[in-house]
């Protein structure tokens, strides 16, 4: 005989949550796949059923309501036809992989064969009996469920229909560019990517575009000893789209991760990054610039675990907000006892262009080692009146002066992009946004 938990208690709420989750999941079917991928999906589904889909009541969803991210029907989002600028990264020599509405478009993509790199679609690899990704798929995601759960990443591991699996063995000269395009106002897309950078390998990975009215992506990055992953992402300009992304990265000794995300517009967008520094001397930089005007909620949720000595990490997140836009930052640095000589830095700042916007920040530090250097700061402010006047007194018009100061505010985040061409490209996009949103 089972006993019912008392209404209103935590147990009762969990019970309710799990029931709702089971009901929601019953309407979804796992994508067709064979052997190893089938098992990974089933395992994810089991984990998700035990954990439940997120609710606003959950600690990590307090500022961002997940309801619309998990509702059975995604809200449709008008397609934005961009005519005033070229597609992001189109001027860069790159290996292009195009997804339209979350489906790989071979005709629009480049030949996947390139020296030093092995690229395979998830949908294809999942049909094979064995594949190098089989021992890795969803493992970082699963590990990322502590200290807090990230159920939408689990959902992704179970249901993502496609994605790319990339193994890098050397230095790849051309960036790999994942291009997401939309063709319909309705629709949902889920992609799961996996990157394996073998010792000493180097890769620049670009992503651009919103892929659907609602999307959910997971990227798991295994960065071995001495390897380097440069990740630059621009998430498109469509206003009504909603999205959740997760980047899980495990860094070996002396390896490097640099990830930068530009988010312009979007009624609901959450980017999570979970990074483990597991080998001595690793370096992880995660940065973002988010621009919101009006109906906009942008959430950066970051967790960096220093699990080895002599590692360095930086979180640099900047948000420019106006007309009721909302920015959220939740960032945590966890320094294990072994992680002596850790150098951790975290800054989250918002520039409020009017008095109606808001910024909610929750910086956290948890440190168990005694010889570490960790700093964090969070501010929100407006355009500095003295700086603004100084520029105007030199003849720079209001509009341009504001743009200069907004870009100055974003500079620290942009500085996290190592490649100057890519940084300049992001700067141009940001400048364009400021000029468009000036009225």
């Amino acid at each position, binding site marked *: 005989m089972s006993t019912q938990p008392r209404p209103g208690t935590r147990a009762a709420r969990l019970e309710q949550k799990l029931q709702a989750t089971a009901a929601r999941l019953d309407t979804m079917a796992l994508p067709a796949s064979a052997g190893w991928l089938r098992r990974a999906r089933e395992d994810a589904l089991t984990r998700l059923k035990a954990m439940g889909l997120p609710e606003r009541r959950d600690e990590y969803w307090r500022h961002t309501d997940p309801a619309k991210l998990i509702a059975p029907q995604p809200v449709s989002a008008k397609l934005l036809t961009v005519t005033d600028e070229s597609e992001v990264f189109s001027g860069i020599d790159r290996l292009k992989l195009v997804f339209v509405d979350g489906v790989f478009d071979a005709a629009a993509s480049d030949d996947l064969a390139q020296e030093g790199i092995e690229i395979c679609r998830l949908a294809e690899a999942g049909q094979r009996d064995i594949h190098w990704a089989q021992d890795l798929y969803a493992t970082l995601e699963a590990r990322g469920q502590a200290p807090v759960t990230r159920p939408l990443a689990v959902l992704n591991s179970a249901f993502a229909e496609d994605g790319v699996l990339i193994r890098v063995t050397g230095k790849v000269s051309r960036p790999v560019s994942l291009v997401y395009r939309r063709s319909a106002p309705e629709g949902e897309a889920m992609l799961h990517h996996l990157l394996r950078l073998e010792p000493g390998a180097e890769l620049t990975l670009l992503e651009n575009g919103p892929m659907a009215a609602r999307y959910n992506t997971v990227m798991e990055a295994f960065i071995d000893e001495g390897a380097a992953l440069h990740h630059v992402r621009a998430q498109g300009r469509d206003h009504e789209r909603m999205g959740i992304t997760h980047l899980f990265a495990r860094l070996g000794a002396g390896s490097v991760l640099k990830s930068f995300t530009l988010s312009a517009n979007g009624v609901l967008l959450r980017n999570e990054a979970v990074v483990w520094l597991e080998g001595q001397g690793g370096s992880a930089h995660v940065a973002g610039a988010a621009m919101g005007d009006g109906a906009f909620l942008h959430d950066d949720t970051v967790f960096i675990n220093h699990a080895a000595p002599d590692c360095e990490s930086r979180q640099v997140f900047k948000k420019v907000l106006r007309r009721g836009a909302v920015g959220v930052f939740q960032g945590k640095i966890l320094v294990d006892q072994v992680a002596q000589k850790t150098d951790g830095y975290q800054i989250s700042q918002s520039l409020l262009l009017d008095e109606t916007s808001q910024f909610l920040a929750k910086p956290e530090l948890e440190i168990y080692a005694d010889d570490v250097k960790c700093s964090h700061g969070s501010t929100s402010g407006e355009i500095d009146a003295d*700086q603004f*006047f*100084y*520029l*105007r007194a*030199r*003849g*720079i018009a209001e509009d341009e002066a504001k743009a200069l100061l907004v*870009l100055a505010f974003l500079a620290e985040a942009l500085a996290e992009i190592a490649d100057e061409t890519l940084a300049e490209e992001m700067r141009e996009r940001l400048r364009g946004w400021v000029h468009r949103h000036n009225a």
Partner: protein
Amino acid sequence: MLEIKNLHVKLEEEDKAILKGVDLTVEAGKVHAIMGPNGSGKSTLAYVLSGRDGYEVTEGEARLEGEDILEMEPEERAAAGLFLAFQYPVEIPGVGNMTFLRTAVNAQRKARGEEELSSGDFLKLIRARAKDLKIDADMLKRPVNVGFSGGEKKRNEILQMAMLEPRMCILDETDSGLDVDAMKLVADGVNALRDAGRAFLVITHYQRLLDHIKPDVVHIMADGRIIKTGGPELALEVEQNGYADILAEVNA
């Protein structure tokens, strides 16, 4: 060039009159100096002329080459040829000095209907001007005024002036915080710009800057008014006797 008539100004936030009827005419080709004790309204005059917020003109007018400037935005005044060398140059982290200068030069050219300078021409020009002021490449690359010493900041102001080639230059306490060598550099920079089509209004508390930038006319300002006007010898008088004698003489 610059004509100020019966200018009355109060602080916007409190009902406090700062300028109480300033009359001043600066002719093209001339250097006028305004000296006066602290709190006399010298810097307020500079700010009001350049269009800073926070001041309310209650009476009077200010014209630059016949044009009423008090209704103009700060950038319009700049394009019309007015330049203020700030007493406290503002630091702008994240904006490179070079980018700033280039944006300013081209913004003014655009406002005047002139063509923008090409990168090459701009670079050539700025290198030459910077060299005269002993401003090295590093200072040009750094964010505007960030980490600059007091002297570097003032030299950077003069560099901006040299690049923008304004017709009416107002120097607000440009000598403050300068050692003798830096003052010489700044003064040389200013003197190099003196010509028949350009006028200067040099605001200073001390006479020493005027040893290097020789004024044609010296005004003494106290309590929001110009109380005495004379030649360069007036500055020497202040140097020797302070302001007390002049104030007493005017009040008598």
